[in-house]
């Protein structure tokens, strides 16, 4: 036990040291200067990035959660594997290919990027919604039915609260992935922090690369943190322990 803890601590502090060393190296080479010297451009790119992620994630949530609920209704149960496979297939296509395909249909710009990101976010949310609802004990649903609850009461009072953890975890995964993938929006001319990252790659300019990449990373960490807090508030106290176990 002690040994395990010791190794854990060593790894953790080594990691902190590496991060600190990276920042010292980056700052000493003034790689973050573009953020301050071109702060207007930076803010525009940051805003574009956030808007891309927000719009595509919200659309994905609005489609995937209801779709997951619908597919778990007894009537559609048989069609579940069809939809799951379609959603899985969507995920196997490389993100660049999705972007390239969308250009031929939607042209270049904001809408193409949003659509590609949206397609990409659907699967984790859909799959976690279905898995969360399916994992509810059938006896519990049977008891609810036997007590005279109507189907919508079973959905809103039993199924959704008890699968909230799983659904929110799916949303969190999707959003965090989305923030990273949104850097590719540059390729279809939709802006975002990818602009600086790709500029940096093309010009061999670490300054642009790091001024673009580090904010994307921080954004992903921040989103993860906020969504975990939301989980804590939304998931009912009684079902929280079960999900952890």
């Amino acid at each position: 036990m002690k040994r395990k803890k010791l190794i854990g601590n060593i790894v953790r502090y080594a990691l902190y040291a590496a991060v600190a060393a990276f920042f010292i190296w980056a700052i000493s080479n003034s790689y973050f200067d573009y953020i301050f010297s071109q702060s207007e451009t930076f803010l525009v790119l940051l805003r574009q990035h956030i808007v891309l992620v927000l719009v595509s994630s919200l659309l994905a949530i609005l489609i995937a959660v209801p779709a997951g609920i619908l597919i778990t209704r007894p009537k559609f149960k048989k069609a579940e594997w069809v939809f799951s496979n379609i959603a899985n297939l969507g995920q196997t296509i490389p993100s660049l290919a999705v972007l390239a395909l969308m250009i031929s249909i939607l042209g270049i710009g904001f809408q193409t990027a949003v659509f590609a990101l949206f397609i990409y976010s659907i699967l984790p949310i859909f799959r976690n919604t279905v898995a969360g609802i399916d994992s509810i004990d059938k006896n519990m649903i049977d008891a609810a039915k036997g007590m005279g609850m109507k189907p919508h009461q079973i959905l809103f009072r039993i199924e959704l609260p008890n699968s909230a953890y799983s659904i929110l975890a799916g949303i969190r995964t999707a959003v965090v992935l989305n923030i990273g993938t949104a850097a590719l929006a540059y390729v279809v001319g939709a802006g975002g922090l990818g602009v600086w990252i790709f500029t940096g790659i093309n010009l061999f300019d670490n300054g642009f690369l790091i001024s673009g990449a580090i904010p994307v990373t921080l954004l992903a960490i921040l989103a993860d943190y906020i969504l975990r807090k939301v989980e804590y508030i939304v998931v009912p106290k009684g079902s929280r322990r079960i999900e952890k176990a």
Partner: protein
Amino acid sequence: MISFNHVTKSYGEEITAIDDVDFTVEQGKIVVLLGPSGCGKTTLLRMVNQLETITKGEIVINGENSKDLDPIELRRKIGYVIQSNGLFPNMTIEENVMLVPDLLGWSKKDKRERFSYLMKLIGLDAKDYGKRYPHELSGGQQQRIGVVRALAADPPVMLMDEPFGALDPIIRDKIQEEFLQIQREVKKTILFVSHDIDEAIKMADKIVLLRDGKIMQFDTPSEMLAHPKNEFVSQFFGKDRAIKGLSLHTVQNLREVIGLGPVDEAIQDTKTIHVHQDLRNTLSMLLNQEADQVIVKDEQDENIGTITIDMVQKYLHYEIKGKMSASQEG
């Protein structure tokens, strides 16, 4: 009152799950559906609250044909308890118990009053347990909550599907006693599924013994033990059915038929037994201890006599075997 009138359920042409079942659960009585697994007892139970469909025949609940009733309304008027208590983990104990009253639109005050009454029935503190979540309770407590949840809206009829099946023997015994105590107060009409012969004998006013969806015998426990109608029934209850039958008789019954032995004050270390305890327990007590008698105490804890193995045997002969041989002759 629940009446099954020639109820049949079949899947297609080939399979008949329930075959022409016909019996009645009288007002305020417990009828236990007993039988080996796959005999259709749970299906039969679930037909009452329309979780299963009926192919032929009808079920009449308190004078109304279940087919004419709206399933949602019907289910809210029937208490339903299942084996794995079915409590909802996202709701507190109070929310769980008061779910049906809530669906029926009871006022906050009525719900609160009813909740404290019900918790008093099972001896749990309403204030303390109300705010807890199901996972914070022991298995026995959860099952008790499952039972009072079914009683919440004071339904005249209750369906219980192996409600105590998942509990360990000691707790099960205690909760069975507790439940019979509650039943004496609330007097519900109860249909109870079990595969445990001892449980059936203990809980039932009448037993329906099923096999492959057919009724083998519908009788009181003592009749069924004494007069098994056919080979299946006598085999099902086993060769020791005479001993099983002893749990239907108390020391008091024996006292009335053959009296008790005198108390010998010289013997000090003999165990004692209460006059209301059943003879099966008394017999095992006698077999387990070295002395050949136990002292019987009455309600005031006074010694009123002694009981020996011979006396139990004699009683068994008169009461149970006597009935059995009479039935074989007839």
